């Protein structure tokens, strides 16, 4: 057959196979050209920034840039004995140059992460920089005896590698100790595991509430006659189209101690003192559930719309209690919508920043708050990226688990 095909020749003398291949290639190129803009867009707006973000969390450029010779001279160091004369000489040369070029600030900040107080040690040496040449090692140690301690040189060696695990470890409350082993940080410095735990907990509670409130609404939407159903749909969509900030601010107005809700309850004599309803966890839950509710209702609705009412009717006509029929016949058919809605709400919830920042207290802040803190306040972008990267990984893992569950469900259904 192959030979036969190869021997076929078109009218113009070109073998048919070749012609076919040409046509196919042109076709392929055309389709590639058609998706190229989209592909480029994805590359520029997703892959590139996310890649840069993830790279930032392990990037360690400060010492490389400011103290290149010292880092190079320390490359073969065994970390057991004090470095030799050339290393000290390199440090002095580097510091002199860094001083002139104003590149020392970032390096000393980076070293201060390793050992608190390192930056002043560096500044002190810069102020009294000894001349290079014989005896530079003793001269440097004479400026401050800490230069004679291994701890500080090990910190330089640790901070001098091109890539570092420092930020990622710190984001899970761990660090590399003197001996090069990974250990957990002391309890009073640990913070981020709690914050991650809190983030997932808040997201879970919000998801459950959104499901509990969203399911009946979606059911109504799907089963009511089209007139009331459309009206209800508009009521769901209207807040969905309203700005997130407006909705969050509206909750502050409603819930604050002098707000409408407290005022009404005091006016009715239900309470004597205003209740603390906002700037705490309760306020965060209320505002987040409200904002995320449409993301639960819409997937549920789209699935429920496709379920024929005949099934439940059939079950009831066969003698099932209406509730049993609903539970055993109707609910299992909505599982895909429930899963999609929960996943959507949960993933959106773990990334929430502005709502907890506005309606929460200091102990209601989620991971994103700390990303903002490190980005804006202390300008530790490595730490901000590390927290962001971990959040991204958590989301991807969740998504993978969901994908696995969904596909096994689909298989089961097929069987």
């Amino acid at each position, binding site marked *: 057959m192959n030979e036969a095909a190869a021997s076929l020749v078109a009218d113009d003398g070109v073998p048919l196979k070749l012609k076919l291949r040409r046509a196919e290639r042109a076709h392929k190129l055309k389709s590639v050209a058609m998706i190229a803009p989209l592909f480029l867009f994805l590359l520029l707006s997703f892959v590139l920034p996310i890649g840069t973000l993830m790279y930032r969390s392990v990037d360690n450029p400060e010492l490389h840039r400011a103290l290149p010779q010292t880092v190079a001279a320390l490359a073969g160091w065994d970390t057991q004995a004090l470095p030799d004369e050339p290393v000290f000489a390199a440090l002095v040369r580097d510091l002199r140059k860094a001083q002139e*070029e*104003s*590149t*020392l*600030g*970032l390096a*000393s*900040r980076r070293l*201060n992460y390793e050992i*608190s*107080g390192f*930056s*002043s040690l560096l500044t002190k040496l810069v102020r009294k920089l000894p001349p290079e040449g014989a005896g530079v090692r003793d001269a440097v140690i004479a400026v401050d005896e800490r230069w004679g301690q291994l701890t500080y040189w090990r910190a330089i060696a640790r901070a001098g590698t091109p890539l570092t695990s420092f930020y990622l470890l710190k984001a899970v409350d761990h660090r590399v100790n003197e001996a090069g082993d990974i250990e957990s940080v002391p309890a*009073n*410095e*640990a*913070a981020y595991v*709690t*914050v991650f735990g809190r983030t997932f907990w808040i997201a879970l509670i919000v998801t459950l509430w959104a499901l509990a409130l969203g399911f009946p609404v979606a059911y109504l939407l799907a089963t009511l006659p089209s007139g009331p159903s459309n009206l209800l749909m508009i009521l769901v969509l209207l807040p969905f189209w309203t700005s997130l*900030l407006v909705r969050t*601010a509206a909750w*502050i107005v409603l819930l*604050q101690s002098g707000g409408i809700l407290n005022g009404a309850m005091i006016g009715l004599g239900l309470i004597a003192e205003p209740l603390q309803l906002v*700037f705490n966890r309760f306020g965060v839950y209320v505002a987040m559930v409200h904002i995320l509710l449409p993301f639960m209702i819409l997937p549920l609705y789209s699935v429920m719309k496709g379920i024929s009412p005949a099934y439940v009717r059939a079950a009831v006509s066969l003698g099932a209690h209406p509730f049993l029929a609903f539970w055993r016949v109707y609910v299992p058919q909505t599982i895909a919508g429930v899963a999609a809605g929960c996943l959507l709400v949960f993933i959106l919830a773990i990334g929430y920043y*502005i709502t907890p*920042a*506005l*309606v929460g207290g*200091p*102990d209601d*802040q989620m991971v994103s708050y*700390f990303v903002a*803190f490190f*980005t*804006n*306040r*202390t*300008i*530790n972008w490595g730490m901000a990226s590390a927290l962001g990267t971990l959040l991204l990984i958590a989301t991807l893992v969740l998504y993978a688990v969901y994908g696995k569950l969904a596909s096994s469900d689909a298989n089961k259904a097929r069987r």
Partner: protein
Amino acid sequence: MNHRIQLLALAVSAALAAGAVQAADLTVISFGGASQKAQDAAFYKPFDKTGAGRVLPGEYNGEMAKVKAMVETNNISWDVLEVEGPELVRGCAEGLFEKLDWSQLGDKSKFVPEAVSECGAGIFVWSTALAYNAEKLAKAPTSWADFWNVKDFPGKRGLRKGAKYTLEFALLADGVKPADVYKVLGTKEGIERAFKKLDELKPHIQWWEAGAQPPQWLAAGDVVMSSAYNGRIAAAQKEGKKLEVVWNGSIYDLDHWTIIKGSKNKDMAMKFIAFANRAENQKVFAENIPYGPTNNDATKLLDPKVASGLPTAPENLVGALATSTEFWVEKGEELEERFNAWAAAK
């Protein structure tokens, strides 16, 4: 609630400010509020009148990230910036600010020594002090120990959400002498001691972030006492609010002018700083808001009545302490992080 609204306002104003800036104007960024109003009267408007250029005022909350992003991407839309001491020193070392040519800025010896540095020129001396609402408290507090005493002074307290000043106040309340505060805070035990003292008061603290919040909260009765910038309390007093300042245990610091590295209007910026730091202009500033001048000649020009309300008045300096810029440059980041983790824990 207010800082939340301010957060919104900040996002909007940042977007607006970015659009409004033109190359020919000098963008001067301050911390906003009552202080910016005083700067407008004392520095911006008179500078506009000299014909050397037009000042476009803006405000920020001290976030160095914006400055860093501007310098790194070489997209500089700010020229002159008001900064606090530690940020000035750190930014100078990291190459975020231009080095200043002091020969253009007037006689160095006429300024208080802290006002003269490589990248910065001191604008004014301000103070963070204990403030209270005299109408709501039966007895007047006199020290930070009273601030911590919730039995005799019941009610919520306001403190700035950050390690800076908060840790110092905790140690002062714990009986550390003003002169020893930074020595104690420099040790591990000292830091533990400060956080332990803060633990005691934590359930009673309402944290503020913008300088405008403490006078509002005090006047509304949300808190009975608060740490506050003395100028903001003075502004509230002018409006007839019965707020009082306790100078004992106050911490004073300088704000500085600096120029963003790569500013397109560097010459005009230098002219502006030199102009603003002239004695006659600093005098007008101090009359508008009680922050002490850095130019010694300006102090001489002041009415004694105005001078007695400044943080730099000798009677107000009793029991006060100067911020250690050196300490906060060194430990600031670490302690702010630790503080943030502490505040976020239950």
